[in-house]
């Protein structure tokens, strides 16, 4: 070991207590729980077999992926527009914009879900308003279905989409854009050929973040879905607490963990994850 290496090893030793603590009180118990998926009700891979044989298991995964993808797409679109607008405004305006993006983050997810119920239900503000103005003559089904869930989840996710994209857009040198214009590119061409590719790492990072969050949503679907849409998190809760089929619940939890780690692994090849999670570049 070189002197420099030994020096580094000394620094690593400093985090060993934290590592041990995490292993003993976090990682080990999680592995213990996940192990139930191959030990209950009988030892073996019977629970995982259900991934291929049980329509119910497949449906829950399908629903979760579908809602996750839709939410991610809409949140990215809205977030991109917002981030673009923020990145292009002056420093003072930027601060107000950021505040407006961050404030919803501090409101409890439960409160927000109930707020959406109040707005979207049959006799809610939106339907009443549309009825009064004569745009519709029957209340629209805006909540107690997947639409309601997506609305609630997108609302939750937009800030998470904005922040990584904004940080990546801020790093784009404005002179590059000016140069593109100077060389004869129009506004749209400048955006598509210069700005968009340069902001792509932020877009991908935001996509990963939002998608992974979406997979584990629990409260929003439970409150806005009218009981008719079951996503993975609530399904696991049902198996563990109510139906006492721990093996099956642990199997799905394992699948969720593996899916998230796999997404991260794939994406780590595309973007710099350390930057995504806040480490300096």
């Amino acid at each position, binding site marked *: 070991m070189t002197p420099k290496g030994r020096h580094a090893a000394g620094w690593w030793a400093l985090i060993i207590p934290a590592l041990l603590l995490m292993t003993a009180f976090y990682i080990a118990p999680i592995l213990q729980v996940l192990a139930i998926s191959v030990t209950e009700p009988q030892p073996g891979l019977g629970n995982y077999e259900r991934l291929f044989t049980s329509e119910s298991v497949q449906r829950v995964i399908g629903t979760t992926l579908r809602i996750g993808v839709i939410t991610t797409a809409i949140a990215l679109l809205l977030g991109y527009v917002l981030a673009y607008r923020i990145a292009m405004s002056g420093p003072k305006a930027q601060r107000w914009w950021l505040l407006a993006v961050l404030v919803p983050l501090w409101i409890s997810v439960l409160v927000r879900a109930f707020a959406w119920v109040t707005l979207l239900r049959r006799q809610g503000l939106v339907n009443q308003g549309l009825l009064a103005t004569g745009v519709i003559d029957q209340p629209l089904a805006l909540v107690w279905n997947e639409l309601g869930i997506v609305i609630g989840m997108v609302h939750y996710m937009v800030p998470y989409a904005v922040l990584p994209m904004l940080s990546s857009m801020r790093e784009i040198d404005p002179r590059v854009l000016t140069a593109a214009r100077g060389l004869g590119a129009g506004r749209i061409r400048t955006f598509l050929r210069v700005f968009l590719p340069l902001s792509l790492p932020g877009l991908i990072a935001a996509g990963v973040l939002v998608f992974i969050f979406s997979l584990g949503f629990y409260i929003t679907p*439970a409150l806005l879905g*009218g*009981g*008719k849409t079951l996503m993975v998190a609530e399904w696991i809760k049902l198996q563990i607490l109510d*139906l*006492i089929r721990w093996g099956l619940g642990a199997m799905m939890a394992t699948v969720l963990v593996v899916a998230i780690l796999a997404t991260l692994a794939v994406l780590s090849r595309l973007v710099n994850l350390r930057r995504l999670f806040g480490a300096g570049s």
Partner: protein
Amino acid sequence: MSQSFHEDCIDLARRALQRGTVDRRGALRALGALGLLPLAAPGKASAQGARELVIVNWGGIANEGFGRFYGAPFEAANPGFKVAMNSTGPSAGRIKGMVESGSVTWDLCDSSASSARVLGKQNLVAKIDYSIVKKSDAISEAFTLEYGAAPYSFSSVLAYDSAKFPNGPPQNWADFWNLQKFPGTRLLRRDALAVLDAAQMALGKDPANLYPLDTRACLAKLREIRRNAVFWANGSESEQFLRTGEAVMGQIWHTRAKVLEQETNGRIKFIWNQGLLQAGIFVIPRGSPGGVNTQRLLASMLANPEPQVELLKFLGNGPTNPRAAPLVPADFRRFNPTDPENAKLQVTLNGDWWGDNYTQLNQDVVDIITG
């Protein structure tokens, strides 16, 4: 997010207390009767040699006064005992976790008939010792099961918005399923229990011989109506769906139906006819520290009709003691599920049958609803 009946009771109690419809003492008395109030600062270890029994409930205004109600009668009759409360919420999964961990600290858990059977078959709860608990203290065998006994009762009834049906309201589950005659969104619990029983009655089977359910037909019947239905997971949700007109009729707990009927001045009504009468079953986790004394505590909960009546007056939970019904004041009889007049209209849910079929059927029901 599925909420159990007892969790919902606490929710209702808190609200009644806030609105001042019940005074604090009444609230405490009623919660005490339900076993929902923990002893203030329960001593963990029985240092002075007092033997402690732990009743596990579903939380709520739970940190004072229990000793005066449920505990006190038992403590008075059995010097040297202390009854403490714990509001962890003893779901079947948590009971399993505790028993399998090998360090059981719970004695008596507020559970359900079907969970009692499921847990019993997995050898996770103890049998009730009916030489100690008196079967004669309950109005029927449905309240004294092999693996649990019920000091209270509740019912899943048909409630409807009378403003939506000027030409006559629905009378039974067949009407509930009749979308031509009674158009509008239906409301059901996202659970197999009581929902499939109602479907079986809608199919025309004699309520007196309802069990075993024809599960395939019942599930098909549910599939028939799911597009026109919303589904609740907790009691307050069920109340909101009806109150706001989101649904025109629903199968909800009678405690919520009572509140709706009173607070909407009769716009929302409910009927006892074909309601599913259910037992509020308490179970004893296997290896509970109290041993035989846990059985004695359960026996005393069933044996005292007065606190059971207090509970009815406050929350609407029905007594199960046969001597309780005559003690109920006249204006509460309409809302007592085990009042003889109401009980004869209802069907007692078969907890044993459900215990054997619940896990599979609940999954099937969830699949249909979310399909």
